[in-house]
């Protein structure tokens, strides 16, 4: 009898969490499908009277969101790919480093970079870049993002490589591969889930980054999605129809990538921190 009570309670609580998680998403999607009339009515409509894609049309035509979306996609994909590539090498090197002291010290310095507020660097970074006239440049932003993600990516990569037995690459070398060949043909394929995890992690974080992008980008045409959303808010007030459509579009890629990569990210983050 008590067992059944527990089961019911568990079900209710799980349902509660689910509802809580989904409500905001549902609400913003619904808002984006309502025309302006339906948004600003009271009592609130939990389902649009006349669902319309008008907000999305406005978003892509007069608000030029397509351009910003494209900027963000390219930027995130490229930066993530580069970060993953570099971190694979450094993670591997770190994992196979024989002297434990050096390894720990390197690891510690990597963790250190995670702890400092990102925008203590923002200001000097900005001044440094202004000095060499590299601001307002998407390439610069890409490079900055890569460096932003490198530390954590390397840590993740290292923990993945720790799980690949050294004998694997040793066997490959014995069979006649040079070291780079061994890496690319044998080791990296084994850690594919890990690579997916690191990539997803980088992509999501870069896509969502606001402040550094705002700081470094000034021309309209080069804005990224978060920056664009930020610009929709003016002193005169917020037009929720376009904004909500923009938010939904902004949420889509990360949700997709996160949905796919979630499993791998979880595995990656917890490999290193949980015993056994």
């Amino acid at each position, binding site marked *: 009898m008590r067992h059944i009570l527990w089961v019911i309670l568990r079900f209710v609580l799980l349902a509660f969490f689910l509802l809580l998680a989904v409500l905001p998403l549902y*609400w913003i999607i619904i808002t984006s499908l309502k025309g302006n009339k339906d948004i600003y009515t009271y009592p609130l409509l939990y389902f649009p009277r006349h669902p319309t894609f008008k907000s999305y049309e406005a978003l892509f035509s007069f608000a030029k969101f397509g351009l910003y979306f494209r900027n963000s996609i390219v930027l995130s994909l490229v930066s993530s790919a580069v970060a993953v590539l570099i971190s694979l090498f450094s993670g591997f090197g770190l994992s196979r480093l024989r002297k434990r002291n050096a390894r720990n010290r390197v690891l510690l310095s990597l963790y250190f970079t995670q702890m400092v*507020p990102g925008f203590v660097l923002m200001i000097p970074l900005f001044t440094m870049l202004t000095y060499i006239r590299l601001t307002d440049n998407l390439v610069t932003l890409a490079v900055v993002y890569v460096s932003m993600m490198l530390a954590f990516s390397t840590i993740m990569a290292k923990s993945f490589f720790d799980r690949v037995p050294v004998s694997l690459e040793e066997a490959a070398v014995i069979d006649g591969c040079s070291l780079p060949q061994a890496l690319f043909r044998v080791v990296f394929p084994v850690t594919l889930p890990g690579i997916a995890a690191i990539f997803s992690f980088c992509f999501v974080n870069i896509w969502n980054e606001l402040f550094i992008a705002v700081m470094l980008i000034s021309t309209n045409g080069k804005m990224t999605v978060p920056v664009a959303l930020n610009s929709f808010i003016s002193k005169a007030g917020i037009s929720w129809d376009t904004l909500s459509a923009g938010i939904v579009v902004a949420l889509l890629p990360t949700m997709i990538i996160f949905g796919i990569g979630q499993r791998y990210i979880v595995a990656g983050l917890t490999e290193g921190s949980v015993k056994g």
Partner: protein
Amino acid sequence: MILPTFIILTVLWYLPMIRGLIIAFQHYNMFNLSDTSFSGFANFAAVILDPNVSFIGVLVNTFIWVFASLVLQFGLGFSLALLMRQRFRGRGIYSGFVFYSWALSGFAIGLVWSWMFNGEFGVVNDLLMRSGVIHAKIPFLSNPHFAMMSVIIANVWYGIPFFAIMMLSALQSVPRELYESAQIDGAGKTRQLLSITIPYVMPVIVSTTLLRTIWIMNFPDIIYGMTDGGPVNTTTTLAIQMINKVFQDYNYGQGSAIGVIIMVILFTFAFFYLRILSRGEVQL
């Protein structure tokens, strides 16, 4: 192998950090770039003694923001993990839905929740009124008493997945034999929880809470999207103040000074936190 990483990190990270420290001690105003003389602690003094923004107030806000968010997130996240521990049908899909908030940009979350807390058309107001809890709409984000609460709620909503995911994995790594032998010895569920589970996952608890505390302090995206420090600076935390100094006042010297203050606080906190809470190794 590791060299490229280090070069990049050094140039793009360590150097700016040192420079940032230096700027905190300089006069650095975008309107008067020719004068970058050293100003000693003038920037710090200006920030602390600012007549418009009470420094103590900002500190208190920061403390409430971090502490309340953390406790709630951890509590709820851990509870969720405990609930999800046993396999059930559809758990994979369920986790996809209940965890996705972590993937969203803090800024977008701030926007979404600001809409939900809207005084006129907000869902929160509507639901509260329909269930009879309140009888008049509350302008959450423009009322100094409710603004902080609202922002914290949004932050908690965002942070639950992090703890849920981490704790779930930690919980799943506890060996079953421990529970079985405890049950044989007559331990009830609560006792099991307290004496077996929690000590076993303590390292994970420590590292995740520390990490999350640092992240909460350093990412004002949610606050920025919801209230931008208002109303009347009731949701202004140190990070928000820094953002304002940089983006509104263009005063880089004072901005850097705040950044340094944040760093000092975090380092001190991390140091004492790890000291007090780590019994035995804390696995990095």
